[in-house]
């Protein structure tokens, strides 16, 4: 059967369960032919590979972080350092960075993973798109998603827009607060690393300039031996925080 010359009948009528079953196999249904008896599928494996997101580096420096996830031990020194450096109030739910925990009881060997998270400094930040007062914006030189707290009206639309739960309302500032890669508290003073990366004893958080080919983050992202991924790629925000293992 000549598939190339058959009309694609469209995937609109493929049942959700069937799509899911294929997604579980790492395949996405891209077409349906011959009255639904033939499906064309494409691999979704590596779709989230960093190079897709990192083809162009519009900023100089293009700040980025790579998490070597399997090394995280939840000692929370990063969180302590962040709180101290950036004056994050000691209130439940207030954080610029935190650590998630994922257990896989059926796994062979290690069963627990810790996943450090922070603002992904997205190239297409939803928070910026939805902010009604332009209080949050993408810095034109280094790509950090910044807050202009004078403009923030506390409507929390940005929180709704953020796929990464990276924003909280700071009662002291009367504005939304978020990670800014320590641009004001450390980088502006000549420090080369964020507080969290500097505090990490396990070398989990690698901070650097993705536009510099000599930089460690560039080298970690631009290789194919170890898989690199981003969180929630389906949100389409093109994050600048990458994850890897091994």
């Amino acid at each position, binding site marked *: 059967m000549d598939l190339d010359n058959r009309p694609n009948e469209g995937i609109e009528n493929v049942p959700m369960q069937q799509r899911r079953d294929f997604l579980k196999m790492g395949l996405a249904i891209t077409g349906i032919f011959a009255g639904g008896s033939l499906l064309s599928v494409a691999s979704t494996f590596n779709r989230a590979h960093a190079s897709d997101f990192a083809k162009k580096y519009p900023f100089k420096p293009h700040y980025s972080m790579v998490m070597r996830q399997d090394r*995280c031990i*939840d*000692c929370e020194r990063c969180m302590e350092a962040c709180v101290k450096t950036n004056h994050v109030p000691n209130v439940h739910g207030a954080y610029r960075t935190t650590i998630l925990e994922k257990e896989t009881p059926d796994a062979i060997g290690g069963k627990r993973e810790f996943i450090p998270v922070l603002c992904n400094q997205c190239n297409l930040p939803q928070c910026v798109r939805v902010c009604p007062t332009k209080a949050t914006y993408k810095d034109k030189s280094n790509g950090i998603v910044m807050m202009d707290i004078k403009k923030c009206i506390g409507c929390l639309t940005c929180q709704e827009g953020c796929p990464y739960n990276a924003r909280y309302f700071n009662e002291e500032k009367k504005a939304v607060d978020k990670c800014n890669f320590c641009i004001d508290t450390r980088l502006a003073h000549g420090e080369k690393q964020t507080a969290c990366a500097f505090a990490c004893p396990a070398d989990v958080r690698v901070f650097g300039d993705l536009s510099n080919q000599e930089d460690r983050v560039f080298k970690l992202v631009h290789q194919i031996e170890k898989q690199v991924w981003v969180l929630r790629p389906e949100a389409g925000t093109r994050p600048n925080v990458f994850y890897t293992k091994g």
Partner: protein
Amino acid sequence: MTLRTLITFAAALALTASAALAATHGGDIVYEKPVKGVVFSHKIHVEEKGLSCDMCHNRLFEMGKVAQDKADFVMESLYQGKYCGACHNGTLAFASNSRCATCHIGVKGQKRLSNGDKQEKKGH
């Protein structure tokens, strides 16, 4: 004596016995230095894996002393075969430089342990 009281009595006895056993085996040790939230479970090592006391005491760990007070109680020492590294070398047990989060239960795991394994309250 009814059957029910007999069962209750037996269950109570078993509970006390297991509690006593856990106590004699040293229970869970949670290290906080040099990093927070590292667990050693006597239960897993003695009861489940069947190690005898003299395999670690007092050659690797002095009984009654806290290993974390020693300056060389760091991962590098383990890689050289000291402390946990005597067995956790990839041959006898999983290597010290793998499966980090198995022993490093973290601040979250430590909190869970001290809450008596109670389920954390789920936030929104």
